[in-house]
């Protein structure tokens, strides 16, 4: 080559060939995917993953033609599902977040299960609140499992302090003052003083009586017990600025700053430590949380109990659960429906007996034999029947985030608002007034229909 080289054809080929080879190598990495595949998409911990894959594998044994493929997506589930929807690669069956499920159903991407309820009784006879109707008579499915909000407590803490354990039936639910009184008895600083005793050091609390969770799932039951809801019957005006709602929020905040029987959010920190750990270590006397915590609580190695929530009038709790749906594109409707019933059968999935999930079919709440099939074990304490099962059946209402339209925007606003009041520095009525003004300004767009009675 000389001082002024030209690019020879050979140079081009050399470099171009390298690139082509690269693509070729990439291509050889492609895995083969067979036909007759049936994809089941889900999230969960490694424990849930094992349970679901075991369930899928026993379902596989009943299938000859179909290959069931678990698509385990540990995190960023919405992101992946959106990408799959946009590219037309949706699974056959899968978990979906409520708002996205309604959206996909309205777009015709999910199968309407209503026509199959007679043919598959285990699908048709579930708790009425667990159904997701996106339009009159059109149902995208039910929750994958049920959950309710209850009180967990550490028996030793109660025995030690002489406090009364939380009642195990709705009929005996505490009124607020009794709840606060018992929380006082449980709370103590490092030198053993109670919040109502002189010299109590709020910076050095050894045990808090309870938790004042500002998560909407935790306060929704209280709100309902006071006789109001997040929205009125029209679904377009909020009741969160009603005197009852303001009083309810004020009571929660007073637990932290007035009575000092519950940790403030800054004392608690956000995702640490978990409720089960705090109960087990005696740092907490009681806690209001979802029933799913029973799995952790029952494995934390301490004497625990479960009870109903305090009530501001009529005892109420929240029932909730993310929907599972069949995608409309599936070529295997029949098998999908079979699997849909199969996946919520406590005999097939051990997550029911381990305490993580509650069943959906009504018979598991009413028929003693069916009840025993999932609660007759170490995870479920004796009072579970009245404190959780009956409570769910008679006193629960579906979580509003599963019913309201435009819930993502509403939920963001409610979360930010509760973060404002939970510092204890802002006036609850004023903040709720601001919240209501924004909600009523077109953000509330009504509710989805309920299951026909």
């Amino acid at each position: 080559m000389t001082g002024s080289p030209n690019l020879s054809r050979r140079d081009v080929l050399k470099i171009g060939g390298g690139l082509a080879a690269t693509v070729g190598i990439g291509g050889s990495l492609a895995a083969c995917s067979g036909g007759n595949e049936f994809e089941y998409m889900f999230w969960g911990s490694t424990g849930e993953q094992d349970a679901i894959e075991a369930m899928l594998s026993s379902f596989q044994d009943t299938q000859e033609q179909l290959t069931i493929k678990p698509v385990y997506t540990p995190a960023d589930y919405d992101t992946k599902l959106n990408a799959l929807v946009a590219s037309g690669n949706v699974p056959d069956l899968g978990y979906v977040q409520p708002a996205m499920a309604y959206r996909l159903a309205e777009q015709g991407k999910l199968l309407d299960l209503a026509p199959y309820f007679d043919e598959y009784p285990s699908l048709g006879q579930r708790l009425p609140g667990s159904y997701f109707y996106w339009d009159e008579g059109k149902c995208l499915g039910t929750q994958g499992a049920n959950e309710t909000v209850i009180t967990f407590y550490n028996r030793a803490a109660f025995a030690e302090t002489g406090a009364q354990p939380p009642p195990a039936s709705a009929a005996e639910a505490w009124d607020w003052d009794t709840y606060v009184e018992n929380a006082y008895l449980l709370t103590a600083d490092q030198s053993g003083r109670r919040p109502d005793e002189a010299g109590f050091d709020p910076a050095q609390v050894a045990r808090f009586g309870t938790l004042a969770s500002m998560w909407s799932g935790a306060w929704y039951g209280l709100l309902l017990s006071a006789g109001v809801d997040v929205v009125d019957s029209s679904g377009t005006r909020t009741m969160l600025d009603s005197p009852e709602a303001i009083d309810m929020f004020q009571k929660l905040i007073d637990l932290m700053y007035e009575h000092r029987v519950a940790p403030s959010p800054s004392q608690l920190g956000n995702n640490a430590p978990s409720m089960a750990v705090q109960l087990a270590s005696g740092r907490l006397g009681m806690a209001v949380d979802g029933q799913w915590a029973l799995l952790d609580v029952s494995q934390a190695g301490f004497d625990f109990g479960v009870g109903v929530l305090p009530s501001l009038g009529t005892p109420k709790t929240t029932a909730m659960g993310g929907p599972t749906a069949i995608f409309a594109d599936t070529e295997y409707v029949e098998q999908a429906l079979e699997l849909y019933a199969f996946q919520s059968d406590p005999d097939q999935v051990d997550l029911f007996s381990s305490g993580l999930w509650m069943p959906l079919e009504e018979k598991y709440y009413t028929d003693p034999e069916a009840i025993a099939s999932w609660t007759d074990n170490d995870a479920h304490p004796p009072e579970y029947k009245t404190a959780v099962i009956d409570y769910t059946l008679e006193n629960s209402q579906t979580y509003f985030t599963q019913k309201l339209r435009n819930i993502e925007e509403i939920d963001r606003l409610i979360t930010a608002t509760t973060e404002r009041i939970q510092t204890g520095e802002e006036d609850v009525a004023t903040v709720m007034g601001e919240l209501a003004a924004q909600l009523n300004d077109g953000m509330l767009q009504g509710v989805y229909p309920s299951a026909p009675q």
Partner: protein
Amino acid sequence: MTGVLAPGPKNPSAPTATAVQRRGRSPRTRVGEARGLTRAGLWLVLAFGAIVMIVPFVWLIRSALMTDAQIFSSPPAWIPDPFAWENFPQALTAQPFARYFLNTMIIELFVVTGTVITCSLSAFSFARLRWRGRNVVFGLLLSGVMLPYAVTLIPTFVMWSELGALDTFIPLTVPAFFAGAGGGVFNIFLFRQFFLSIPYELDEAAYIDGANPWTVYWRIIMPLAKPVTVVVVIFTFIGVWNDFLGPLLYLTDDSNFTLALGLATFQSTYTAQWGLLMAASLVVILPIIVLFFVLQRYFVEGVTLTGLKG
């Protein structure tokens, strides 16, 4: 003048040699003492800083040896009691981590190779060859990383889907051979900045001797660019090692999963198994710590311009 700043390749060390000799001759004991004191002070600063920096790692180790209850006990404990050694076998058998390691290494091999070669080549062109539109093209490339990936993710996913490449390593590896399309532009930019700091007289002399740009790139520039190459290798390797969203989106069969996905299973959508997560994290980052420890030796002063070895 040019000779000092930009020695030609033929006689690079001449001025330095004299300077060193002169310095060696002058008596500098007092200055030496003062320097010794300064160094001791700096050493102390360094040591103090190191303690601050090592806290997270110590935290990780102690958490890896704790039960979930201990990890979050308040006030926090630093010594596990008891040592939860079982976290390690439990974490490492919860998922087929050997398989995930293999998958990750396959992706690493392609991505690191592709990125280093094509990014440095392109950067060589942008830094040391003159062609019409060069700066415009570079600006366009750079603009590609200014648009949040969240909105290009779906179109990109659809493209790979149309090409039938879902659940393969193709979407994760092939872009690397196109100068790391997307985020790889940062690497081109980085190489470019370093290449721009190398005196052009080196290329000039080579071209006079009849070399072509490829030869200059391969025989002159790249050997001088070891430190930056090491940086790109480290960053790319760690980027792939920790990449979570890419594998999550493109891989569905869990036999194709990578280490980062395996780790994520311990902190799923609604639950976390902290002890296992910490134990697995610890095992998973050890290789990259070793990698860094080994590669950082290439950050040795005086290689680039003086051409002096050692």
